[in-house]
């Protein structure tokens, strides 16, 4: 806390004007001359001890004192005094404002959390001192610097007024990194974070400055859709909708909230269901949808009663066209082909009827390195080491056993690898550890005694699974787990192709879409604004921002290419749960119990007092004589 409550100290030299003021007062005092019969009485009056008392001396020069006071208050106003708030005063103060979806939650009075934050930030702007610079940063899933460090209050207020909620979940790291970057140009000691507290509790960031965590009061009850997905079951889709409600505060109203969940397909209502949720509870609803073609589903939630957040009351889901999975498996892998032939949703290449190849595949299972060039989204390589791992591991013809494996990995779910005899033994090179495989982009799914046995590598739009040993030289095909393993690979491929299960897309960024390469497309947002995006050389349209819920239509000229519905679908935003404490890497910061108080500028008060003194001086100079008058 600073003890010197003035900002513009350079104006203190104006106090030197007191010297000429006093000199001129006495030198230039024009007293009106009044001729009187005799000074005898006035001399005795002035010789009276009371007249010369300190108070009378003060009154004799009260005009001078008023002028001195007037000058002092004017100079003090010019020095821009302020009332210290008790908090450390920062010259450069970045203000991080949470604009995530939960900030749109309203309280019983209909005021949103963002409005509450705006009111607090407006106070800071109104009370900012002349040497202070504020910078507004909007925080959602990303960070946006709304203003530079500025002392222009009008500019800051206008920017603050334009701030709107992004219907995305909140993430603090980007904003903190942005603030850290700003700290390289200006000295930043403190940053202020205004939020409703609905942020991730753990922040992967090492704070180089102090963070003041300001939390506005929570909103009211809320109920919303937190998950929407569909799973294919033969000729139909099972659509799963999860609805959750906020956990009531202690002592608050815990009455169940009723709501109607309505499912629409291509704008037509398919089904609806009434639900009733108590605070903090969730409910999953299943709607069967009979369709073979593509479908645009929309789920609407209509709560009966107060609902704090509206953006989580609608969700979208795009059902793909149903088709069989195209799998390539060379005839040499007889065991795999036999396991695949029992699956009706799979078309196997090369087929037994002679159809040798397709334009693209969903899954490639092969023991030939050359097949890695086939166009497919999912690969299962068997019996060889990928070229980029030859320096890390080599194969020896010795018996190997599985020591451990990831039982939750999609490929190895329900697969028991205990006591599987393997004639190929992968051996890691000297000094090679698991971390080296991870740095090469591989994840070890099954570990042998001397090296990895099963690996997975994810690249853009492509999943590669590696069985470094050949299954023909192991007892795995004779185990119950082998057809399960093959089925798991098929499920991975189907999920990758969106054939078995689809999930509702969350706001933030549109999912990548394969279109014509190097082509400019128009993207129409739900608010009818249109932006342009260009596909990459491989035809992938990615990185299109989708900050609001609704349908985004991708157009090529006047032709609609795709329609993608995005929804909020986050438990954290819908729950409106607040985090009392943010855990950083080395420290934790609790929410401030009181709202941030800014230094209150007092120059206006001092100027008003100066003006009042001016009026008093004028009145005193012009007033009629006073004092005791003795009437005869």
């Amino acid at each position, binding site marked *: 806390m600073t003890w010197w409550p003035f900002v513009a100290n350079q104006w203190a030299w104006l106090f030197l004007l007191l010297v000429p003021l006093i000199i001129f007062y006495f030198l230039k005092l024009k007293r009106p001359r009044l001729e009187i*019969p005799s000074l005898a009485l006035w001399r005795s009056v002035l010789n009276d001890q*009371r007249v010369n008392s300190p108070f009378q001396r003060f*009154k004799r020069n009260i005009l001078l004192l008023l002028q001195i006071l007037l000058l002092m208050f004017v100079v003090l106003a010019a020095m821009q005094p302020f009332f210290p708030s008790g908090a450390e005063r920062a010259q450069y103060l970045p203000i991080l404002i949470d604009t995530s979806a939960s900030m749109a939650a309203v309280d019983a009075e209909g005021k949103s959390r963002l409005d509450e934050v705006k009111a607090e930030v407006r106070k800071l702007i109104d009370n900012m001192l002349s040497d202070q610079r504020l910078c507004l940063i909007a925080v959602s899933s990303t960070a946006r610097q709304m203003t530079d460090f500025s002392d222009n209050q009008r500019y800051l207020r206008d920017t603050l007024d334009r701030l709107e909620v992004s219907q995305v979940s909140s993430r603090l790291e980007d904003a903190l990194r942005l603030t850290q970057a700003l700290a390289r140009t200006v000295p930043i000691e403190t940053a202020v974070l205004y939020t409703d507290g609905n942020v991730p509790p753990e922040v992967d960031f090492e704070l180089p400055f102090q963070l003041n965590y300001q939390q506005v009061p929570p909103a009211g009850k809320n109920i919303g859709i937190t998950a929407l997905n569909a799973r294919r079951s033969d000729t139909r889709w099972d659509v799963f909708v999860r609805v959750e409600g906020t956990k009531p505060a202690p002592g608050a109203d815990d009455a169940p909230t009723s709501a109607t969940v309505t499912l629409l397909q291509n704008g037509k209502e398919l089904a609806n269901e009434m639900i009733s949720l108590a605070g903090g509870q969730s409910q999953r609803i299943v709607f069967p949808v009979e369709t073979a073609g593509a479908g645009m589903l929309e789920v609407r939630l209509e709560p009966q009663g107060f609902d704090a957040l509206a953006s989580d009351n609608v969700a979208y889901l795009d059902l793909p066209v149903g088709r069989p999975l195209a799998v390539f498996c060379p005839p040499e892998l007889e065991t795999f082909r036999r396991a695949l032939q029992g699956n009706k949703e799979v078309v196997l290449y090369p087929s037994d009827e002679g159809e040798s190849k397709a334009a693209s595949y969903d899954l490639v299972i092969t023991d030939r390195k050359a097949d890695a060039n086939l166009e497919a989204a999912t690969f299962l390589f068997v019996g060889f080491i990928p070229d980029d791992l030859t320096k890390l591991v080599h194969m020896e013809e010795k018996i190997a056993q599985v020591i451990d494996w990831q039982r939750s990995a999609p490929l190895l779910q329900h697969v028991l690898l205990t006591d599987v005899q393997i004639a190929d033994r992968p051996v890691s090179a000297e000094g090679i550890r698991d971390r080296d495989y991870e740095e090469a982009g591989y994840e070890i799914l099954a570990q042998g005694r001397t090296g990895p046995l099963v690996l997975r590598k994810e690249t853009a739009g492509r999943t590669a699974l590696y069985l470094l040993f050949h299954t023909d030289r192991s007892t795995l095909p004779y185990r119950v787990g082998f057809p399960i393993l093959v089925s798991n690979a098929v499920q991975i491929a189907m999920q990758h192709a969106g054939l078995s299960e689809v999930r509702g897309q969350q706001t933030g960024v549109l999912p990548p879409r394969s279109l014509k390469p190097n082509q400019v497309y128009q993207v129409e947002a739900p608010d009818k604004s249109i932006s342009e995006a260009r596909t990459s050389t491989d035809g992938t349209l990615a990185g299109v921002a989708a900050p609001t819920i609704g349908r985004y239509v991708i157009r090529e000229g006047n032709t609609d290419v795709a329609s993608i519905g995005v929804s909020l679908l986050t438990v954290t935003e819908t729950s409106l749960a607040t985090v009392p404490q943010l855990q950083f890497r080395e420290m934790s910061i609790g929410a401030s119990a009181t709202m941030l108080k800014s230094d209150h500028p007092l120059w206006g008060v001092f100027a008003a007092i100066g003006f009042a003194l001016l009026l008093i001086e004028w009145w005193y100079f012009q007033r009629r*004589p006073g004092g005791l008058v003795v009437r005869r």
Partner: protein
Amino acid sequence: MELLSTQAQFTSLLDNDALARLEKMRLVPRRRLTNRSRGEHHAAKGGTSTEFADYRDYVAGDDVRYVDWNIFARLERPYVKLYRHEEEMHVVSIVDASSSMQFDGKFERAKQLAAAFGLMGLMNVERVSSFVCNHSGREPLFLPPCTGRVNRRRLFDFLEKIQGGGDFPIDLAVEAVLHRHRGRGIVVLLSDFLTFGDLERPLNMLFSAGLEVFAVQILAPSELDPEVAGDIRLVDCESGHTVDVSSAGDLLGIYQEHRLALEEELGILCRQRSGRFLSISSRDPLEWVLFDLLRRKGWAR
């Protein structure tokens, strides 16, 4: 009486009605300060007037003409009749004509009062004289003693012609007057008494000279209720000296206290010397002063 009947003003100082009323008034001194010359005032000691005073035992050497033979016949003891001695009283007026009296009709009021007191003296067959003090260091203007009704015109002319202005303080003026004046009686002091000098000394000198002091302080309304405010420079009209006063309005209360204290002090000084003191405003009606205030205060009857 001729002048009054023709409605022509006998003097510019007093109107004819006031003159007529004043001619019937007599001064009432507290002390019997008279001169040896015969007059209309009874002397304190026995005299030869026709007004009986008392009896006393006859002693050898007494003039037998004053023995009351009727008493002797009845009581067979000689008693001498005593008669009051009527002597002349001197009425002298000292008019302060300095510049301080030139405000708000103070000087005019002083001349009117001097004329009124002089007229009462003349009509009472007293010796009346007047001094007017203007400039310090100069001899006061002097009206030699005169008596009788015939000298009214002389008195009024003297007073009408005098001009005000000067710096003669009243204390020094009294001393200058006493250098010239002879005779016991009444001295009428007409001044504002706003002097830096000591007033006790001249009053003592007047008392020693056998003069009963009738002091009249004449103040202007601007001295009684001065309307001053703020920072002003007061200039003494006589000396030209100045005094700077700040917040003069706030000092008016103290000013009034000092003015009343001066009034009180003058009254005490006069009473201690068997004199009388009166403070009036120059704006007070003359009739009220002459025919009401003076009578109520017992200065005249």
